[in-house]
Every structure is written in C-alpha cells, then in structure tokens.
C-alpha cells in the first residue's frame, strides 16, 4: 500500500524537481529573485513601522497587537503562495489550449498545474513569515492557555488553507473570463494586506463585504483577538474568534467545488 501511494506521487515529484532545476539554471537571476522576493515581505513590515512612527495606535490597537495580526498573515500567506500560488498561470493554459494536455494526462489537473509552475524562490518568504510570527508571539501580550496554544499553531495553517482556496477560486474564474488575472490579485494579494490590519481600520461597505463577508477577518484579526483575550470592538460574538479553522475548510470546499465546475465548463480553444 505504501509503495502504491509513493508511486502515485512520483510524477508530481518529478515535475517539481524539473521545475526547481530549470529555474535555478540562471544562477545570478535566481539568487536575486530569491533575495528580493524575501525583501518584499519585510516591506510590509517596514510600511507598518513607518505608519506607527506617525501614530502609536492603529484602529485602536497598539504596535504589539498589530504585529501579531501581521505575523499570522505573514506566516499563512507565503505558504499558500508557495503551494498553489502558481495557479495564477491558469489563464495562459486556458488561452493557449495547453490545458488540453493537462487533462489528457492520467493525473489530477489541479495537482499538475501546481507542480508544473512551482516557484522555489517563494521558500524564502515562507521562512521569513514564520520568523515574523514567532517574533510577534514573544512581543505581543498573548494570554497563554491550552486553547490559545492550539490556536497559535492552527491559525497560520488555517490561514494558508484559506488563501490557497482563494488562489484556486481566483484562477478558476479564467475558465469563463480569460483575462481576469488581476481580479484574482485583488482577493489574493489584496486579501493578504486586508487580513494583516485590524478590521477596525476599515469602514463602510468595504468592511462588511470584503473583510467580514469574504472571511478575511478570520485569517488574522479574529484569531489574534482570541490570543490577546480581547473582545471584538466591532461587536461580533466571542466564539467567532475561534472559528478560523472551520471557515478555512468551508472556503476550501467551496473553492474545490468551483474548480470542478470550471474544469467541466472548459472547451479548449479550437483551431
């Protein structure tokens, strides 16, 4: 049984290895790419620091509190980006009809797409994001207890699943609307930024629809409130702060369903 399952994953591993080899061929370019995409993560942190130089609280939260939210998001997003972020190339496959070839092979289409464009440079960001999270946990006034410790481990994992689902759902839109790539960016990269700030910063419809409605508040803001032992100043029920693993699975299930519908809708390009 073990042998059979390893045989099942071997083609994906081969695809991954081939990608890593091909992308590290131009060594200087790869080193620069790895270095600067890592710097890009610190940039979010630098921006936050600059904002705190002007004002010592953001939406009613202090530096340590906000750092914790940024930390959860910084640990979650790069993992999703590393694992499935390359699904962004989906539109190229649909436009060129290359997706035909993907469907013809006896492997999962989603699995192939993920393995075919694997971007090893994103490893740096995932490591760095985790480091920021650990640092944030030592600085922020976390009220440690067993459930909180569990949430500390689960929150970034749930966040990664959540963002992974958003990546897949965003790419699926390309089956109907080929040039939709930038719309997906609003929810992936835009969602990452929105998730890292206290929800109290945002107002009006944007807060209700984008941050709470689409669930970005569940990534970092609500779990951080639970870790800090604070209620939501916006009045959402207290138990909601512990729900991020559930919402992540829910969103992943919806994204999976959406992906299957998209694949069934696919009609190649013709000649």
């Amino acid at each position: 049984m073990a042998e059979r399952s390893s045989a099942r994953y071997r083609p994906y591993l081969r695809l991954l290895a081939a990608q890593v080899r091909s992308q590290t061929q131009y060594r200087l370019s790869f080193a620069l790419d790895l270095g600067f995409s890592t710097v890009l993560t610190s940039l979010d942190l630098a921006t936050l620091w600059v904002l705190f130089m002007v004002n010592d609280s953001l939406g009613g939260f202090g530096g340590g509190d906000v750092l914790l939210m940024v930390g959860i998001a910084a640990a979650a997003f790069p993992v999703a980006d590393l694992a499935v972020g390359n699904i962004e190339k989906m539109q190229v496959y649909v436009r060129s009809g290359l997706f035909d070839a993907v469907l013809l092979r006896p492997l999962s289409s989603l699995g192939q797409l993920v393995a075919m464009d694997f971007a090893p440079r994103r490893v740096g960001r995932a490591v760095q994001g985790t480091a920021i999270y650990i640092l944030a946990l030592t600085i922020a006034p976390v009220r440690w207890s067993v459930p909180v410790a569990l949430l500390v481990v689960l929150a970034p994992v749930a966040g990664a699943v959540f963002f992974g689902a958003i990546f897949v759902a965003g790419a699926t839109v390309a089956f109907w609307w080929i040039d939709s790539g930038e719309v997906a960016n609003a929810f992936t990269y835009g969602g990452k930024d929105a998730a890292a700030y206290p929800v109290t910063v945002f107002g009006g419809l944007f807060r209700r629809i984008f941050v709470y409605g689409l669930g970005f508040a569940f990534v970092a803001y609500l779990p951080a409130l639970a870790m800090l032992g604070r209620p939501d100043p916006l009045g959402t029920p207290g138990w909601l702060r512990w729900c991020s693993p559930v919402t992540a699975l829910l969103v992943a299930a919806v994204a999976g369903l959406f992906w299957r519908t998209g694949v069934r809708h696919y009609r190649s390009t013709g000649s």
Partner: protein
Amino acid sequence: MVSTGAVRVLAALAGAEFRRYLTYRQATIAGAFTNTVFGFMRCYILLSVADATGQVAGYAAGQLVTFVWVGQGLLSVVNYWGHQELPERVRSGQVVSDLLRPVDLQAAFLATDSGRAAHAMLTRFVVPVAAGLLFFDFYLPRHPRTYVLFVVSTALAVLICSTCRYLVALTAFWLLDIRGAQMLWTVTSGVGSGLYFPLPVLPDWLVTVLWVGTPFPGLLQAPLDVLVERGGTGHGLALVAGQVAWLAIMTGVCRVVQRRALRRLVVQGG
C-alpha cells in the same frame, strides 16, 4: 537627428499600441477593479493613521484621499509592473528583427509605451478616481493651473518609468533571464516612489536622498504632490524641473547601456 519620417513611424507605433490595448477589454476592467479594491484598503489605512491628529506628514485627510485614489489611478498609467516583451525577444533572438528596422530600439520602446499609457489614462485612471470621488471626501486643486502642471508631471512620470523599465529590460543582454533585476526594480520603485505611503512620512534626510539620488519619486510622488498642491505652484514647478532632469539622466544612461548591449549581442545562426 529626428526626421519627420521617424516621428511619423513613432506616432504610428504609439497608435498601434493604443488600439492593441483597446482590444484587451477584459483585462482593462479586471485591472481597474483591482486598483479600486486596493484604493479602498490604502485609503482607510492612511485615514486611520491620520485619525488622531487629522493629518499625516502635512497632508490633511482630504489630501490623503486624493493622494491614494489618484495614485491608484496613475499606477497603471505609469505602469511599474507591466509585462516586459523585450527580454523574451532578446532571449529568443527575435530582437534581431527589431534591430533591422530603421527605428531606434529605445525610441520604439518609448513610443509604444506612450500609446499604452494614453489608453490607461482614458480607462484605468478614471475608475479608481471616480470611486474615490464618490465614496470619500476628495481634495480638489484650488488653482486651475495645477491641473495643467499635473498633466505635464504625469507625462514626465510615464517617460521616466519607461526609461527605467527599458534599463531593466536591457539587462537581458547580459543575464538572459531578467526576473532578478525585475524584482529589484519592483521593490525599490514601489517604496521609493510613494506608492505604499507618502514619502514625507520618512525622515527628512532619507526623503532628500530619494529625491536627489533616485528617479523613483518622479514616478508617482511628484505628480501627486503637484495635484494636492503641497507647497504651492512654486514647489510644483521645482518638482517638474527635477523630473525633467531625471528623464535626461535616465535617457543618457539607457543610450550608453544600449550601445554596450548591442555590441554584446551574438545572433545565433540557423
């Protein structure tokens, strides 16, 4: 050096690029939507920072709103992150056919980019700015002359950005794969130009270094400062003069690098 024939060719290139972008309707709508979502986010964040004192680094709340939304509009006009076609043509060798044409490589690059920018100004600039006007308390310039100066400053920003991206593209002659150089450009241009936060938030010495030592503030901070009338018309004119200087410097650097690059070019036979 520049004959009327060459001007006609460049104008035709710009026109063709403009029409090409007219056909990318889906992408235009998608891009404008995303710029607008980011506009809401950045606007709320900056307004929240301004909450306590009513201003950030000398920008009143209304000026911050204008800064963010017009910035989101200009982002696609100035085009920091557009896909580069030239490096791929260098890698595959197709650049040879570009070089055979009686048009200078850089002039053709700038002309096509201007066509793209004109299209973006009429489409992608309008959507986020309209959203900002609709949902927020937007600062409108007091003097009519500010609008004129803003148009001049924006045109200069587009040209400076084109020369910068052309320089990035030229590294393909040495590196073949420009992802690293592209990433360096993405990081430095975003922070250095005021995209993430208005530059005056930073310590004075750093702001001075950025203005004097790099072309980045000329990409976004300059036209936005002109529009929100920071420091009045006199200051605005000084910013535009700085942009002209940086355009001259960057163009000169591109000429030198292009000459070296073309000397390096080896055409694969076949």
